């Protein structure tokens, strides 16, 4: 029976009670050597392996995952995709990513539920509208869709927000990117895994990297919980744990790990159609297809590798939520969890070569990782295959801090928890 996913194949399999679906990806034992090893079986690592195979014909690749695929931030984020960035390197990179998202489900033959329902950033003063105008005009000049909305236009799109005057932060308007939206996070990991597997990539779960072997400045391979595996090239895509893994290769990074929490409400009939971001309150919300309100806030502000946070940030985030959505008050928060973020020193990612030959880094994603997944894999694959960055990641180098070429979207400076 056809391996491809489609309505037809679904119907055919229904006749046999779905008893003949094959594995989505194999469960191979690690080989002693690979051309390329990708550390980290999250969206970025799996996408990198997929594009290595698809774009560069490199299929002798292993993705090593400590636990289960997508168990890191891929499966813990609030699934927002957008490219509404101010600074050119970010704008071009994330816009390329958004374009990949738009064709991703069909490219992978796996429905990643890419839902371009729009992303609105709310403005609460004229000066904030000016800042949004700055960002919006920059986006348009960079060829990215974007609209500046007045209060009435925001109200038409998101009628459920509080437009009364009895609020701390009245809504003046907003910045809308219609092509922004959400995608199904787990499906991204699974879809890339299945597609990479079908191109010959070995995806190896429950295989923790415990050491990185480097000899005279060149990477040799990795020690793992399943033995030593040699490789010509090794790429790490373990955002959240970059500091920890890079240390195995003797590298210190311009990164701190911080915990970011997310919450979901009980499932409800549709009430919010777009992604709404309330920057002043560090709050954003969207509604999942299951009907849950998916909410996020700011990081807990202290270094952490624990995938859980504390109540003060929950409290603050939900008060912020009620400040724009008082109707949420009687709804219930059903689940809360934390993810570990690579907070870089300028709030922008690091994708590129390292001082160690054959060892490449992909990290420093702050909160931006999920939406970057396809482009991150695409340019990381290029960087590994060609041993030089792709045009889209040439600015995201590790040495930009020494050179004074930080990409500081927020202007917060070298204070990771401020980005």
């Amino acid at each position, binding site marked *: 029976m056809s391996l491809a996913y489609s309505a037809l194949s679904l119907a055919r399999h229904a006749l046999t009670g779905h008893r003949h679906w094959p594995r989505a990806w194999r469960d191979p034992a690690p080989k002693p050597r690979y051309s390329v090893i990708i550390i980290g079986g999250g969206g970025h690592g799996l996408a990198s392996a997929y594009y290595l195979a698809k774009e560069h014909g490199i299929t002798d690749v292993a993705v090593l995952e400590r636990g289960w695929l997508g168990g890191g931030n891929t499966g813990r984020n609030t699934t927002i995709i957008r490219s509404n960035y101010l600074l050119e390197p970010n704008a071009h990179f994330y816009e390329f990513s958004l374009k990949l998202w738009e064709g991703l489900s069909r490219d992978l*033959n796996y429905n990643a539920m890419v839902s371009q329902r729009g992303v609105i950033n709310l403005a609460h003063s004229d*000066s904030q509208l000016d800042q949004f105008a700055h960002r919006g005009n920059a986006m348009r000049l960079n*060829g990215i869709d*974007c609209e500046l909305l007045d209060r009435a236009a925001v109200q038409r799109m998101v009628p459920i927000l509080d437009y009364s005057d009895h609020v701390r932060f009245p809504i003046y308007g907003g910045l809308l990117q219609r092509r922004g939206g959400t995608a199904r996070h787990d499906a991204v990991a699974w879809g890339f895994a299945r597609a990479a597997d079908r191109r010959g990539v070995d995806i190896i779960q429950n295989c923790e990297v415990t050491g990185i072997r480097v000899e005279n400045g060149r990477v040799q391979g990795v020690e793992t919980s399943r033995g030593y595996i040699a490789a010509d090239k090794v790429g790490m895509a373990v955002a959240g744990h970059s500091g920890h893994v890079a240390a195995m290769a003797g590298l210190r990074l311009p990164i701190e790990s911080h915990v970011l929490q997310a919450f979901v409400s009980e499932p409800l009939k549709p009430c919010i159609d777009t992604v709404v971001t309330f920057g002043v309150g560090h709050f954003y919300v969207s509604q999942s297809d299951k009907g849950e309100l998916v909410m996020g806030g700011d990081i807990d502000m202290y270094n952490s590798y624990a995938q859980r946070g*504390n109540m003060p940030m929950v409290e603050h985030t939900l008060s912020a939520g009620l400040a724009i959505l008082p109707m949420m*008050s009687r709804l219930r*928060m059903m689940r809360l969890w934390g993810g570990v973020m690579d907070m870089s020193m300028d709030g922008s990612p690091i994708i590129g070569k390292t001082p160690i030959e054959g060892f490449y880094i992909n990290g420093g994603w702050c909160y931006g990782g999920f939406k970057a997944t396809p482009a991150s894999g695409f340019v990381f694959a290029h960087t590994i295959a060609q041993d030089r960055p792709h045009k889209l990641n040439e600015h995201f180098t590790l040495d930009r801090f020494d*050179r004074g070429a930080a990409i500081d979207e927020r202007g917060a400076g070298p204070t990771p928890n401020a980005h």
Partner: protein
Amino acid sequence: MTERFRLASGGTAIDRARPLSFRFDGKRLTGVAGDTLASALLANGVRLVGRSFKYHRPRGIFTAGPEEPNALVGLRRGDRHEPNTRATMVELYEGLDAESQNRWPSLRFDVMGINDRLSPLLPAGFYYKTFMWPPKAWLTYEHYIRRAAGLGTAPTARDPDRYDHRSAHCDVLVVGGGPAGLMAALAAARTGARVILCDERVELGGSLLRENRMIGEETGAAWARRIGAELGTLPNLRLLTRTTAFGLFDHNMAGLIERVADHVATPPEHVPRQRRWNVRARQIVLATGAIERPLIFAGNDRPGVMLASAARAYIHQYGVRPGSRAVVFANNDAGYRTAADLAAAGVTVAAVVDSRIADASTGTTQLAGIPVLSGHAVVSTDGRFGLTGVDVAPLGEGSAVRRIECDLLAVSGGLTPTVHLHSHAGGKLAWDDARLCFVPSTGRATVRSAGAAGGAFGLGACLAEGARAGAETATAVGFSAPAGVTAPAVTDEAVRPPQALWAVPARAGKASKRFVDVQDDVTVEDVGLAAREGYVSVEHLKRYTTLGMGTDQGKTANVNGLALMAQLRGEAIPAVGTTTFRPPYTPVTIGALAGREIGLHFMPVRRTPMHDWHGAHGGHMIETGLWMRPRCYVRVGETPDQAVRREAAHIRNAVGLVDVSTLGKIDVQGPDATEFLQRAYANGWANLPVGKARYGIMLREDGMVFDDGTTSRIADKRYFMTTTTANAAPVLMHLEYLLQIVWPELRVQVTSESDQWAAMALAGPRARTVLARVVEGLDVSDASLPFMGAREAHIAGLPARIFRISFSGELAYEINTPADHGLALWEALLAAGAGEDIIPYGLEAMGVLRIEKGHVAGPELNGRTTAEDLGLGRMVSAKKPDFIGKHLRERPGLKDESRLRLVGLVPVDGTSKLRPGAQIVADAAPTLPGKSLGHITSTAHSPTLGHSVALALVSGGATRKGETLYAAYFLEEGGATVPVRVVDPAFVDPEGKRLHG
């Protein structure tokens, strides 16, 4: 309609003398005080209460507690509507109004019920495999999927109720008021320790209220009531009923929700609906009990199928007969107790179906007149909206199916300890093969489980463990246990071990579904599909099938699902592991998490001493970083924009007064104060005489501009520093860091004086005239008080610090007075200026004036600009051996000539309006994507020049002076680009004649 299922007697929770009327789906019914909505519905014979999430199958009441997956209702109407409310946890009150959910048009006839027929096409994860064609069509498919999904409907209005927060600290927190919890609380409290006991139900007792057990001569319920009363008399113990411990966080901070007024129609005035307790406990005893698992067989989801523990609870706690004719199906001894209790309550028990083979060693329990079918299982059920009968067959070979009529099927698959909080605290779990459940293993030293929560299911064991846990936790924090708190001796009857029966095998040719997770409609076949496709880790199983992702978070489903996956993988259950329990234990009202920091109090408001005056005099108040400031003062018949232009023009020609109290003010004092400023600022401070002010720029260590402001030397070893409004707090902390961590040898103290001083700027050609009228004992002539002079004097009898500094570019004085005098000084200056036509002016006119002067502010100090970028490079000291920012500002990227640097822009045509946020490009009609040369940061209509002017950050900066570029505002449809000329940013009085005047 009468309560035909209400028993004549019994019911530990209810008061038959107090009838209550309520509505379900508009139908008027009656219950009694003490009922839950679920028990009242059952008492009235209502069995169909909702529809399932995915297949919209008819569902009834499945449990009697917080684990309820099915009986979710919409409670209350209008702005107090609460979707997805568990009927089993709702205390009945007079006039309660509930409606069923996830059905249209009605509960009995639900069109989406079609999904059940289509289910062969909708296996787990079906949506990952389809809806990919045609391109971009997903949004359309999704539109319908979203409408089919979801459960209840959200209210749209503001919640009229209030939610309070409070903190509490204790030596021992006991969670759960069942037999173990009661003993633990008593034993701990008797030592004198500060104890908090919380229980999520209205009454203490836990299982004692739901079971027919004796403790000594008393019934369990009576014993619980007596102990509860005793606890109530202990001053060092706080008793919190109707209070759910929803989460356990770092350092023993427990989150509790007290449902203060959910049991009444509307909360009394000033009483919160719910109160959230933040409890910090030195020791914690988790006596959270256990939750029964269902058994999995074909048709195990019909209304009338119920947990055995629930069936017993409805009888003993609520005096309700959960059915008329029952079958009991169990893999453990709970079945027999259930059958006996049902029989005693007058329910005909048609059979006890025990999946275990009876043998000589174990034998079978005999119950008078109740047939026991050992080694049998229920293989299917019938009944569209409620159970009408079950088919029973021997397990394994030979399938002599026998049909048994019944309207109740009580099932028990064994117990699962409620380990959520243990798990929140990072505790691990171990699988117990004898008891067939996960029990707490290692965990936080200060958190321990007692009773059923720890796997001790016998009453006697619960009581004993509770007493021990209470005494030991109290002694662990330094209290000594007095003699005499011993648990009453209760002998637990020997139980035969349960026998694993994770799913009754499907019968050939029967397609009827076997549900693992009844809320999200996850079947045994779905688990099989996940295993087949490689989604074999627990987390993949959960995410791929949505097992345990519903409002009940899989309390009755997770372990069964896990066990099935283990079977399919041919591994032991521990090898498959268990999903991490995340807070909350049960869903928590968002309002209760937010508390009182909502509405206008979402973030505190900061007010200047002249706040009320502004409001009373036409000030349009706007928020800037918590502060409320007047944007402008609008006169009758004026628009705000006109007001701003009028005010700005007026300052250039006459005089005005603006409130600048929001500026950060820092007292810098000490023998090394001067050296400290030398190192903290980029420019030099060595030779500033007392009585003089100086403009300073602070850099970040990475070389970017951090903040700017004027600092004055008011005494030999004392400076008065000002910062921008936005950076007042960050600058102070930065200085504290430098003094405490980097240069501890410097003897300097820094103290915030931001709130100590009211500050106002008197600006305009006539400023001196006005000041001279009211100042006392100070010659304010240019000779005596020149530009950048700083003096102390009295003004209109009020102490003041007068600084001759200017943000506006006019002759100006920044005047500070102790805050409580602020309004008086403000009014005195306005009075003194009456003859000079003085006006108050606002934030925006101030902005216009500073833009005309080319002074940088927030939009230019964006954290990405260096001193050079802002045209302040010459100020940065080349001589000082060290200062913050010195060492990284020389990096090539910060010296690059193509950096964005400050320039002025004017419209070439002298009329076009320049707008903030416009992009600067080289072509009149740029092709997209195009190259940015920079952007406009601030604009104003210059009253002096009579046209629009702008400050901009442009690549190359001043080197482009004279060039014509284009300002592009793409956000405006058809917005044409505006030709602009690059000029010096100081548009007005570049030589500074006016301010020196």
